[in-house]
């Protein structure tokens, strides 16, 4: 069944405490090549049937009303992916 992927990221101006914690942990396992980390969320909405324009519009609506909070987060991707695609 096709899936719609929704990516949500903390806004650039919002300090991301989770990303900061991960950035602090990387050098502890010897990985020093990264200047920063930001942590977001990926949602996969599975569609029963074809992804019609209406379904895609519903996914966009879900992305901005429930899946993200526009005060602190941006929706960075709403996209249909094929079965074998990640």
């Amino acid at each position, binding site marked *: 069944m096709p899936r719609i992927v929704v990516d949500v990221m*903390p806004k650039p*101006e*919002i*300090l991301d*405490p*989770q990303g*900061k*914690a991960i950035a602090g942990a990387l050098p502890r396992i010897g990985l020093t090549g990264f200047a920063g980390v930001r942590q977001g969320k990926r949602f996969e909405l599975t569609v029963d049937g074809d992804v019609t324009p209406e379904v895609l519009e519903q996914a966009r609506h879900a992305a901005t009303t*429930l*899946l993200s*909070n526009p*005060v*602190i987060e941006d929706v960075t991707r709403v996209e249909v992916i094929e079965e074998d695609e990640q």
Partner: protein
Amino acid sequence: MTVETPLIGGPQPVASNNEDSPLNGVKIGVVTFPGSLDDRDAVRAVRLAGGSAIHLWHGDHDLHDVDAVIIPGGFSYGDYLRAGAISRFAPLMEQITAAASGGADALPVLGICNGFQVLTEAHLLPGSMIKNNSLHFICRDQRLRVENAGTFWTSEYAQDEELVIPLKNQDGQFVADNRTLDELEGEGRVVFRYVDGNPNGSRRDIAGISNIAGNVVGLMPHPEHAVEAGFGPDSSARGEVGVRGGTDGLGIFTSVLKKLVG
């Protein structure tokens, strides 16, 4: 003093401790979501302040004629998506949002901790909460200053009066853009500010805010845990108290009761 703990499950009124008080006729609804933790404490606080408390269920479509609503602390829906995000769409929240947005006789609503997060997600209050800047869950007795004693929930305090009540959360860092923060400051809508150190990185030390009308107030610390001597914090902004003797939070609940009695 003993307080009977009623079973959750129906909108039965829980009468106040003092049935002769005129405040007893005021009905304060306390909402229970799956994952609410402090709903019984809020019910108890309403009773100790002299009012009648009514249990409200998140899935209900009826506010049962309550005069005000408290959205309590906890982890509604497990805080799975974002704190308060799923609760916003509960059937009862639609009723509360509509009633709280009305004109002069809008419903007074108080959101405590997770309840504050629900109010921001419902757009009844601006801004949002992110993880504490320390990344730690913080549990401590916190000193606050009442910056607006003119709201439905703070009228029993003096302007700039301080209080000590418990703070306990993980997602307590209040954030908003500078324009929103300037608006909140300019319109006197910063209701509580942290004193003696900002515990979580909240912008401009903000601990609680209100809407323009002052009927909707949200705050992160927990006034309902500082309402009865013997069960409160070990300190008070009013001076020395005995062990667990702090009751600085009680005024939040007497404020709304007295406002509603007129």
